[in-house]
């Protein structure tokens, strides 16, 4: 116990640095995947058949294979094919992870958006048309908020999963919190053979997800004024 107290400040410092990397990957993924998902969802709903088929096949591949494999392919593939990697150093690993995460999550988001858009009854658009509204007025003043209301619960689920999925970036040695915790097992800063830092990382995830749950729940409640 005394030993742990002694190790505590050193470990927390390392874990904090790792967690910042975790948060960076989380926010960058969210920022990229939220708009990209919308573009993909429009693609899969396109009336131009070749486009919608192509997009659906891509979504099928991305959702049908493990994110970990996608990470490994994106990180190692350029090096294996061109002889030298385009992902250099910690920044390179971060970019590779961001690309894999954004693409993967955009595909999941696109399906949620599609459900949200198609879930708004056709009669809403027709009512707008009959009242002389333009298509963009109908989208922004009538459909959009109803769509957002529909997608908040499934999006909350995905967002919370994303927080935990960032740990997969450990596989390409991105120095996020799991990597930081694990380093004390092998030996770092005079501490070795300590397993508790790895376990302790769970506390970070738990607290951060707790905050997100409250925020997203608040948003859901805010949209509760209509049905």
């Amino acid at each position, binding site marked *: 116990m005394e030993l742990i107290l002694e190790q505590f400040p050193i470990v927390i410092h390392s874990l904090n640095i790792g967690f910042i990397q975790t948060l960076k990957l989380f926010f960058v993924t969210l920022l990229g995947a939220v708009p990209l998902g919308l573009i993909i969802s429009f693609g899969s709903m396109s009336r131009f058949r070749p486009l919608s088929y192509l997009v659906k096949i891509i979504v099928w591949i991305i959702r049908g294979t493990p994110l970990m494999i996608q990470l490994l392919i994106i990180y190692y593939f350029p090096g294996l094919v061109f002889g030298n990697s385009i992902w250099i150093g910690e920044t390179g690993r971060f970019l590779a992870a961001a690309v894999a995460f954004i693409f993967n999550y955009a595909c999941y988001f696109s399906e949620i958006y599609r459900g949200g858009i198609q879930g708004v*009854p056709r*009669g*809403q658009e*027709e*009512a*707008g*048309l*009959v*009242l*002389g*509204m*333009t298509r963009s*007025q109908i989208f922004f*003043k*009538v459909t959009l*908020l*109803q769509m957002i209301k529909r997608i908040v619960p499934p999006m909350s689920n995905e967002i919370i999963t994303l927080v935990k999925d960032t740990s997969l970036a450990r596989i390409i040695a991105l120095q996020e919190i799991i990597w930081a915790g694990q380093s004390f097992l092998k030996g770092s800063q005079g501490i070795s053979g300590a397993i508790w830092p790895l376990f302790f990382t769970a506390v970070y995830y738990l607290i951060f997800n707790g905050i997100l749950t409250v925020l997203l729940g608040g948003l859901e409640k805010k949209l509760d*004024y*209509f*049905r």
Partner: protein
Amino acid sequence: MAILEVEHLHKNFERTEVLKDISFSLEKGQVLSIIGSSGSGKTTLLRCLNFLERPDKGVIRVNGETLFDAENPVTTQEAEIRRKRLHFGLVFQSFNLFPQYTALGNVMLAKELLAKAQPDYKARKKEIHAEIEREAKSLLDQMGLSDRMNNYPHQLSGGQCQRVAIARALALKPVILCFDEPTSALDPELTGEVLKVIRGLADQETTMIIVTHEMAFARDVSSHVIFMDDGHILEQGTPERVFEHPEEERTKQFLSRFTRG
């Protein structure tokens, strides 16, 4: 002169012909009821008048102005249609109120969006808004909803929702107000309050087209009745003529189900 003239309207869905050569006219202040069994094309006809469906052939004229002519592509352009649509109002069977707006908000929304396109909107913003709100409140009052203006649709009964929808359609002052089975989604107790409102509009000589299954109401409120069957107008005339002395065997058969109770 007739306020509405429909000539030789045809509409196909894939290979099914839903409207087969529909022609009729309507005078100002008249109430036209369209009756007939499900699938006879009544709703499609109403949707064509409101440009929710594009007829394959035919002409639609309001006050002598050609709103739609299948032969003349200029009349079928989107921007043109949006302006012409405003000649018609449509009340849906399923209300289709906007759930995120209050009753008052539903009635005001389209009017406010239209007002924004006015050149003097920025200068007279407050004035215009107040005017729209005053009119909307007076319409809801007329519908017997003065104490429900700030309620959201999910807080209202079906009958109240439909009355809000009627006020919403009236807010744009359409030349012709159309109803697509306005009481079919309501239970019998709530049907009465909606029919009473429509009755009131008829008394004020609002020009209306009503697609309905309420035979007693159609007979009572209309100045003209059309019986549709399989995409055709099989019979038309005054309510007395169509309901008391139908000539066609199919009309008699259809109406007998209602008179026998």
